[in-house]
Each structure stands twice: as C-alpha cells, then as structure tokens.
C-alpha cells in the first residue's frame, strides 16, 4: 500500500509549510500568554477510556455561534453511531476497542491527485480551526458542539478536482471486529454519504478531527469525520476511510434504508416533516433538571445557516428534494 507523504500533495495553493509552522507557533505563543483565546480548554475530566490528545495550534474559525456549548459529557455520551449500536449511549459504551491510529484515507476519482494518505498528510498545511456549530439530529434533538477541523474545501482543492467532479462520496471504515454494531445488518455496511461539490466546498463544511480542543473520541467518529451543520446529523459521516470525487450522485446509507424518509439533501427544514414526526421544533440536549424541563425551541431553516447556504438550493423544490 502506497501511503503518500504530505510532500506529495501539491501545495501551490496553500500557505507554505514554513509560514504555516510560524503562524502556528506565533498563535501558540500568544495563547500561552493569554492574549488570544484560541480553542477552549480541554475538559479535565476526560472519561473516555481512550486518552484524547490536545490539538495544538487551533485558531477560532468563522461562523461560530455564541450559544453556550453542550458539555463534553453530553457530546460524548449521547449520539448516534450505529456502527457501535443503535442506543444513544452505545457509541460511548461500545467503542473502546476501536483503533483510530494508524489511519489512512483513500482519495480517488475525478481528481488530478489521488492516492492513500495518512491523516496528517491529508490535513497538512491547513490550519485547524474551532467552529462552534449547531447540530440538529433528524430525530428532533440538537446540541451546540465546539468542533475542531479544517474546511473540507481547502482539503479537496489540493487534489485538483477535474471538471467532472460534481459530487463527493464518503465511506466509513468497515471493521466488525472493532465495531460491534456492524455485526448486525441494521444498515447496509459500510456507511456511505455524499455531498454535491458546491456543498462540499462551502466554507461551512468541515472535516473535523477534534472536539473541545482534543482529538475526537472514538464514539464521535475518530479520527476524521464530516460536519455539515445545515443538514441533519446523519450526513456527518464518521471515521472516514474513502473520499471519492465523482460525476454521478453518490448513494447514501439512510436513503438506501428508507428512501421515503431520508433523501440525499437532508437539509434541516422545519417545514418538511419526517413522515413519522414533526421537524418544526427541537429539544436542545441537556442533562439533569435543567435539561428535563428545557423548553423545545423552534427549528430554523437550514439550521440557521441559510445566509451561507440558501443560494445552493435556489429553484430546488425542497419538499421533493428532502
């Protein structure tokens, strides 16, 4: 297997490595003096079995909400990741045996540069940013999550997509030995997702490697996952091993499982209900009494990111293209 080193990736369009390193150390230095707030401090109660590493040189990126983020504990103990089981606490409980290192990602399809890259190689030269995003699950609950990652568009353009690259298809790793949920065919494995090229290169779209300033815990999609904050959470494919640029629309796992309920776009839309429940409001996750009696809040069109993405869908009937 040929694993390409960062040096193989064209760096014509990105900051040269040395300026990058410089910028990084300057920011790190400032952060140490407390002059700039970079990423929020890593929670000191990391209860995740696997020790998460602090990510260095994280700057605060654009588009962050100032709503108070959910606790690290809520984020890492309540989510959907069917590869580890279908209960909301299954990912947290059943992901201990998963090994996110070493990791390589295959980049293939309609691009001038393709191959197999390790995570560092894939992301090298693109600065890590913290983005505090709303996350709206299709099940009508939501969280505020401080992700750490890089804009997917920045990563993709280094592979010089050809003019035939209309879509990006992603695939999750298939490791039934380490992912007990994959031993039952609840969904067709491996999990697959996709975006249009415009969606993938929108500045909101993130390839995330961390949360709360530390590397992603296994249950949240280590080591590398997609964040598309204006779409329902299931679009955010986790533990990515393949990124393919292609001309035809990719299949997506939930659409295969229930085409009437989950479409390709899956944009957050309070006006288009799931066939079995309303999408007009959502429950903001929170444990304890405050969470128990928290009011439901109205769901926003495109999860509140319409200013950035509404133009991608002008002229599209969102009722049919759900």
């Amino acid at each position, binding site marked *: 297997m040929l694993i390409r080193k960062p040096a193989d990736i064209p760096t014509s369009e990105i900051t040269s490595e040395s300026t990058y390193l410089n910028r990084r150390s300057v920011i790190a230095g400032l952060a140490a003096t407390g002059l700039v707030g970079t990423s929020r401090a890593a929670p000191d109660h990391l209860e995740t079995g696997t020790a998460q590493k602090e990510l260095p040189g994280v700057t605060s990126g654009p588009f962050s909400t100032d709503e108070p983020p*959910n606790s690290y504990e809520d984020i890492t*103990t*309540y989510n959907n990741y069917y590869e580890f089981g279908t209960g*909301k606490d299954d990912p947290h409980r059943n992901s201990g045996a998963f090994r996110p290192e070493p990791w390589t990602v295959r980049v293939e399809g309609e691009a001038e540069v393709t191959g197999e890259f390790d995570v560092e190689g894939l992301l090298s030269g693109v600065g890590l940013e913290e983005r505090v995003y709303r996350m709206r699950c299709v099940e009508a609950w939501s969280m505020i999550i401080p992700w750490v990652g890089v804009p997917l568009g920045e990563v993709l353009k280094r592979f010089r997509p050809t003019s035939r690259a209309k879509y990006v298809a992603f695939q999750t790793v298939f490791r039934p030995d380490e992912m007990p949920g994959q031993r039952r065919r609840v969904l067709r494995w491996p999990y697959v997702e996709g975006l249009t090229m415009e969606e993938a290169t929108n500045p909101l779209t993130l390839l995330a490697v961390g949360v709360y300033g530390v590397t992603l815990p296994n249950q949240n999609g280590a080591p590398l996952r997609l964040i598309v904050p204006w779409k329902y959470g299931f679009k955010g494919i986790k533990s990515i091993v393949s990124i393919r640029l292609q001309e035809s629309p990719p299949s997506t796992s939930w659409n295969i499982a229930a085409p009437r309920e989950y479409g390709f776009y899956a944009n957050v839309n309070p006006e288009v209900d799931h066939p*079995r429940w*309303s999408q007009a*409001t959502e*429950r903001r996750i929170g*444990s304890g009494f405050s969470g128990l*009696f928290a009011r439901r809040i109205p769901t926003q069109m495109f999860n509140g990111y319409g200013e950035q993405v509404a133009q991608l869908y002008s002229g599209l009937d969102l009722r049919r293209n759900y």
Partner: protein
Amino acid sequence: MNTRVYKPLLFAACLAPVIWLVLRIAGVLQPGLGANPAEEIQDELGVWALRLLLATLCVTPAARLLKKPRLYRFRRMLGLYAFFYCMLHPLAYFLLDLQLDFAHLGEDLLARTFITVGMGAVLLLIPLAITSTRGWQRRLGRRWNRLHRLIYPAAVLACWHFYWQVKADTAEPLLYCAILALLLGIRFWWSPLRGRLFRGG
C-alpha cells in the same frame, strides 16, 4: 400460595420501575438519566407499559398450563398496572417532551400514525380499567369476558406502535411482537374458533 404475601410483593414489584425512575431523576441512583432525560423517562415508561401488558396476557396461559388457577388472582393487578404505565407514558410525553403544547399534541395524535396507533391502544384499555372492579364484573356477567378481550387488539396496537417508532433497528420491537404472537397463538389454539376454522383439526 399465600395471596396475602404475594399480592403486596407483586404490587411493589410493579411499582419498582417508577421508583427506580424517580431515584434516577433525583440523582440517588445510577445510571443517571443522561443527556436527554425527558426521552429516557418516556421510553422507560413506554417499555414497562408494554411489558406489563404482556405480563397480564401471560396469566391465563400460565394458570392453565401449570394447573394453578390461583394465579388468576394476580391478573387484575397486573392489568391495572399495565394501564397505569399506559397512562404515564403518554403523560410524560405530553408534559416533558411537548410541554403542554396542545397544538403539537393534536397534530401528533392525528397525523403521526405511530402515535395514533399508541392512542388507539390507550383508548381500548380505558373501558377495561373502568370495568375492572368486582361490581362491574358481576353486572356485566358473560359480557365482561367478551369486553375484556379488547386487551388483544390493544396489545397488537401497542406492539405495532413500538415497531413503527423505530428508525432502523427493529430487533427489540420484533421480540415483543413474537412474545405477543405466542400469547395470542396459544389462545387461538385453545379456542373453539380453531375447530371451526380447521374442521376436524
């Protein structure tokens, strides 16, 4: 079998899930309710509603197969507890999840098929709870037995409701469906209906 001992024991056992939930809410017992406490309470109550409904349906076959007619003494309590959870579960939904939003509730009950089906189960169980007393049993005579067969369609609707609210993993609801099928199958096997349907069988 000493009814004086077993009835209070069963009473306490049936109440245990509620007490367990209250202690988890109060933070006395672990695990806590987690990141989505409203959902946890509601789901816990729903699953116990179904379990107790199926437990109620176990009494007759158990009494017959084990030749222990005294088991019938526990049927009313199990049935009423099943009803109790069948009320608490939608109540938790309405109070904690919908927060008394009547418009949302109305829409859910009418337009969300899995919720309509759940409501159907509750509606079928209401007359059974009302007529569960000895007085009503006496007054209705043989019609009481016929009326209380409504628990069969109610249990079918409850299982269907469970099956339908699942996103993809149908294993757990299918297990409950299988248990119900077994419990209804035994009754069919014993009933005169079988003889009439399959002549000579």
